């Protein structure tokens, strides 16, 4: 259920076309490249037949190799190249198939992209989009699985976006491309196949508005990226035990609309943040801190964070399952928050398993 106060372009009312997240990404880029000659797309493997798991499909054919091209394995310099091109008035989209590889370009992103406009006294701007994918499927292991968005949230001058559904992916990517600032655009591999209602034309999902995806009374659950979907599944499980969970998707992590979250927590007095990353100094820490600051002196608020286990990601299946939050663990945590005096509860394994068959067509 969508938040009543927000009228989103491309909501179900506007048309019934259903599109996959992966196709929404390429469609959005195509529309922006048509609209604006200064937009180009580059990065390792964007032009091969796998097309970044399909998310750059068709772009080479449509726009040719001058505007869609691969690079050497040189993430650091290629990021600098993107920044320089952006300073010269182009609008580069630089694609990385795994977010882990961004560690190779931190210097350019943190020391140049984020600071250029400020430290050069407003003389330049850096309209750069860095597309990255959080890798999750089976056996990705320690270096192909990280969600490192909080590092970018930490740095003034960078924007960060992590859409959870095809509708937002399309609109937020367009907004990122049109933004005059560097945007780290965080995708999630498991979202690629998910479908949502997506309008055909261009539209924007700009920074500054969290979305209430599902209204609830008893506990506020903030999900980040793919964890929005897991939280919605958890909310269904919680229904069985009479707990009504509100699910919020920040969509943009920086700038972060925490007001929507705070408003929700003012009602529920319970907050669970579910992240696709580690908790320590993570997005969840920031949200928890903001809520704690905002609600101080208003009466008790209970807060919990769940995210990656505080370990590297192991590929062995039992360990890997335990590494990630899932609908059952989210539901159990949310229940504990919502019903602090009740005996601990967890969904029974069969309904937890069934939860994975729940598909939600966004924009929620």
């Amino acid at each position: 259920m969508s938040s009543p106060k927000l009228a989103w372009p491309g909501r179900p009312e506007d048309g019934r076309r259903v599109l996959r997240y992966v196709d929404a990404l390429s469609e959005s880029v195509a529309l922006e490249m048509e609209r604006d000659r200064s937009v180009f797309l580059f990065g390792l493997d964007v032009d091969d037949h796998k097309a970044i798991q399909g998310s750059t499909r068709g772009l080479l054919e449509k726009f040719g190799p001058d505007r869609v091209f691969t690079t050497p394995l040189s993430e650091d310099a290629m990021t600098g190249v993107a920044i320089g091109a952006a300073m010269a008035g182009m609008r580069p989209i630089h694609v990385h198939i795994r977010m882990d590889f961004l560690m190779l370009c931190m210097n350019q992103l943190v020391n140049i992209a984020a600071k250029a406009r400020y430290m050069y006294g407003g003389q330049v701007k850096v309209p750069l989009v860095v597309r990255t994918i959080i890798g999750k499927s089976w056996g990705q292991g320690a270096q192909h699985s990280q969600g490192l968005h909080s590092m970018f949230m930490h740095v003034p001058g960078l924007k960060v976006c992590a859409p959870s559904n095809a509708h937002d992916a399309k609109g937020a990517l367009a907004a990122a491309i049109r933004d005059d600032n560097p945007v780290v655009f965080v995708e999630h591999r498991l979202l690629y196949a998910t479908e949502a209602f997506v309008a055909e034309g261009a539209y924007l999902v700009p920074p500054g508005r969290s979305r209430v995806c599902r209204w609830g009374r008893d506990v506020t659950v903030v999900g980040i990226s793919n964890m929005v979907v897991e939280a919605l599944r958890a909310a269904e499980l919680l229904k069985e035990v009479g707990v009504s969970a509100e699910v919020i998707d920040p969509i943009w992590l920086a700038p972060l609309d925490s007001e929507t979250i705070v408003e929700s927590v003012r009602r529920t007095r319970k907050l669970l943040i579910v992240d696709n990353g580690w908790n320590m100094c993570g997005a969840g820490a920031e949200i928890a801190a903001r809520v704690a600051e905002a609600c101080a002196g208003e009466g008790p608020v209970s807060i919990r964070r769940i995210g990656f286990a505080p370990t590297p990601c192991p590929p062995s299946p039992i360990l890997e399952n335990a590494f990630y939050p899932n609908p059952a663990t989210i539901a159990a945590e949310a229940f504990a928050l919502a019903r602090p005096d009740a005996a601990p509860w967890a969904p029974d394994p069969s309904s937890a398993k069934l939860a994975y068959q729940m598909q939600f067509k966004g924009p929620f």
Partner: protein
Amino acid sequence: MAASKASKSKRPNRPGADAGRIYASLRRIRRVEEEIARIYPTDKIKSPVHLSIGQEGIAVGVCDALEPRDAVSGTYRGHATYLAKGGSLPGMMAELFGKDTGCARGKGGSMHLIDMKANVLGTSAVVGTTVPVAVGFAMAQKMRKTGAVVACFMGDGATEEGCFPESLNFAALHKLPVIFVCENNGFAIHEPIAKRQATDKLCQRVATYGIPAKRFVDSDTRAIRTHIAGALPKMRKGGGPIFIECMTWRWREHVGPGDDYDAGFRSRSTLVRWQKKDPVEIAAKALAKAARAEIDAAIEAEIAAAIKFAEESPFPPVEELFTDVFA
């Protein structure tokens, strides 16, 4: 670790070149990977695999010249390096299966093979990152005067990462005992080298650091072995690094068990040309049929045992999630 012990009987690194030993090493790697490809479509293997089928001659040529005290550093396409240097086969197989007895206890996966008992350094899934690590391992050998060398394998793509020239410079400056080995298969995933590199003068470039550099156009196992064996004595005495670029061909697809000739970005006819230089076949020809049969039978038995070991081993229990984050 049981897995490590299981491999002790196998010693591919005895001194001197020997046709049987080289064939056995090559054939063993080939067969292991073929078995991996066979098993892969079942869900027994728990992480994506990068086969080196066709490229085995390089790892075997280099490693056969090394001593046990020497180390190798490989890539995510690391089965050949790992096995050629004497890494435990049951340990590797169990790792692919995600088992507690795996060389990384199921916490690494196929891209993070390691066997420190055999001086096989851990491989990495981030291209190029192991190169400076190998150089640091070599620096420690120099500091401790062990006389050991480190053979550092990388793909052609890895040479485009800035850490590669940084590493070359540092290794040359400090005369570190590193054998840099570039396995140039002409592709990074599906991108041909011509779309990534301005020229093909890698050897000339490396030579400007004062590092002797040599290209092997068809990566003949024995030629590589002879070259490395010849360079080692000087290296052990502080002569500094060397570099070899070995032209080769990845027969299969980048990741997974199949091939990728239908995708249209490279041609099957080139494969056929490379298959005529198949290192396993070449090594086989040097042996009598009976000798080969004996080796082959031993290899099949060893592989079958390793698969059985992997299959029968338990998964790590859930508590293992939290161990070894810190030492």
